[in-house]
């Protein structure tokens, strides 16, 4: 599922066209659905989070089943910053992200020395422990009640946060765009290629002199940083943070969104998240257990029939129509 397939590389103008169309649609949402801006903002935030997961799981091959830990740390850090008098949103998000990145750095020696099932177990147990800590540390997190009424300063000192979420939407969209560009640059860099090498065959990467653990640590910390920013932006745009920010459910949700869009593909997170969350919004009135049929069915179908998610399907369609140009490995 994570392995890039050999398909004709899309031409440069096609890539640019698709990318521009994507961001134009995102902007158009603002004008087309002015009543759903809070949902739109939460989709943007979640896309950022899923993108951070793609970085480690899709590209570096680190199986993280507890990624919401970083989202949660960022979310709580943002809330506590505001409560303690530091209310500037942009630097606040960066500082919160740094907390999450620091935590990723601390646990990375434990997470990165194993792979496969033990790695699933390590990340899962960190997730469960951190959730319980947040649940029990009521003096810091207010436990089950969550922290509400978080009022950051106006954006850039000018734009006040609005009741219908206009400022929040642009703020989240701006963050997603910036983060996306950063992640794209990182993945196109030698580091990004080395990460994919580690995913495909860590042993050979070692043979050619790559410090596998070093590269993976960089990816893990960057991913934690991005997830932390996503959590911070979630707190800042909803003025609230609760335990669900850290929950294992969120980690699993993010996994499903990622494989739906296509793990190991730059656009996988940005495609899977909006589709998943929009469908779930329609099913919001259902019994939550019925929704599990949809999620479960989706996972089964993707793994059995559509490895590579929606983007994988697109690639399959493209590779059926052979083109004159030479094929190449790509992710996009």
């Amino acid at each position, binding site marked *: 599922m994570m392995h890039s397939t050999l398909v004709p590389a899309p031409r440069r103008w096609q890539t640019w066209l698709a990318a521009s169309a994507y961001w134009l649609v995102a902007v158009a949402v603002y004008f087309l659905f002015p009543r759903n801006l809070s949902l739109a903002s939460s989709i943007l935030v979640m896309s950022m989070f899923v993108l951070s997961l793609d970085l480690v799981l899709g590209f570096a091959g680190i199986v993280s089943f507890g990624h919401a830990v970083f989202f949660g740390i960022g979310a709580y850090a943002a809330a506590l910053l505001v409560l303690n008098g530091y209310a500037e949103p942009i630097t606040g998000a960066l500082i919160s992200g740094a907390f999450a990145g620091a935590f990723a750095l601390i646990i990375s020696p*434990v997470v990165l020395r*194993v*792979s496969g099932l033990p790695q699933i177990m*390590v990340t899962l147990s960190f997730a469960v422990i951190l959730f*319980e800590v947040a649940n029990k540390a009521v003096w810091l997190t207010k436990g089950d009640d969550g922290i509400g009424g978080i009022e950051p300063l106006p954006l850039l000192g000018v734009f006040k946060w609005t009741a219908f979420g206009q400022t929040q939407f642009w703020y989240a969209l701006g963050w997603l765009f910036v983060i996306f560009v950063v992640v794209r640059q990182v993945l196109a860099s030698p580091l990004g290629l080395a990460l994919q090498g580690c995913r495909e065959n860590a042993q050979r990467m070692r043979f050619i002199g790559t410090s596998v653990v070093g590269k993976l640590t960089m990816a893990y910390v960057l991913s934690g940083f991005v997830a932390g920013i996503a959590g911070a932006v979630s707190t800042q745009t909803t003025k609230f943070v609760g335990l669900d920010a850290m929950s294992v459910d969120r980690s699993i949700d993010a996994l499903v969104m990622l494989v739906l869009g296509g793990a190991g593909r730059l656009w996988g997170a940005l495609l899977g998240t909006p589709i998943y969350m929009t469908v779930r919004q329609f099913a919001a009135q259902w019994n939550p257990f019925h929704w599990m*049929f949809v999620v479960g*069915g989706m996972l089964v179908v993707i*793994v059995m029939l559509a490895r590579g998610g929606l983007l994988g399907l697109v690639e399959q369609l493209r590779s059926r129509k052979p083109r004159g140009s030479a094929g190449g490995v790509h992710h996009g």
Partner: protein
Amino acid sequence: MDALVSGLTFVGIYGLSYGMILFLISVGLVMTMGLVRVVNMAHGVFAAFGGYIAVALMNSAGLPYALAIVLACAVAGLGSLVVERLFFRRLYGASELEQALLTIGLAFIGIASLNLLFGANVVSATLPAPLTANIDLLGRSVQVYRVFVIVLGFAVVLSLWYAIDRTTFGARLRACVDNAGMAEAVGINVRRLFAISYAAGSCLAALGGAVGAAILPLEPIYPFKYLVLILMVVVMSGKGQMMLAAAVSIFLGVVDTAGRFLYPETGSFLIYMVLLVYLIVRGNTLIHSPVVR
């Protein structure tokens, strides 16, 4: 002094019975992991189904306790054969992430079906009268049920030991765990062997779910609620080591019970701490780490 003995008895009896249920539920997965290395996140579904079916047979059909449990195990075993044929055959040799994703999907579907069939509320099993009586054990009143669970658990451990160590089937099974390719080359039908042991594992999980319904309450989310515990047993037991799995289950059961007994507020952490320490110490020698980073 009396309080100490009484406390130790409590932790011993409750931890041991809890560990036995844990063993019954997870031993099938230990076996599966040893044989075909499929990370089955949906294993708890069979335990939950076993429990629910047994309770339904008792409450609605009025069957006696033992018969209801035996029937529930049989249903779970047959059902697992279908699931194996439909889904798992495709997973042999797939990456662990794919296995985990597909089986999480199956677990979601299983949970949704449990809710659809049996409702969202916690279901409690009514134990037959002899099991609900209390007896005095080392100065503490203990429910007969707990003793029954421990005895049953040891009986299963013994029969498993006999089946694996003393029968031809067991010898074949061990051969497959050690080297499936070589076992196949000398004429062992690995696929069939796996299907049988998978069904047996699911039967045992159903037994654990049904007998343990008074220890691990039945609710639709059961397969996820106890997933981490089940996986803990698997990770700490190594590939296919069933006797080790029994020891690990009992250890985890006692540690968890002791944690909750001594520190009711924070005790539930203890078991995760044990796992983390274990993974930190043993991390790079664990199963499924062919490449040590």
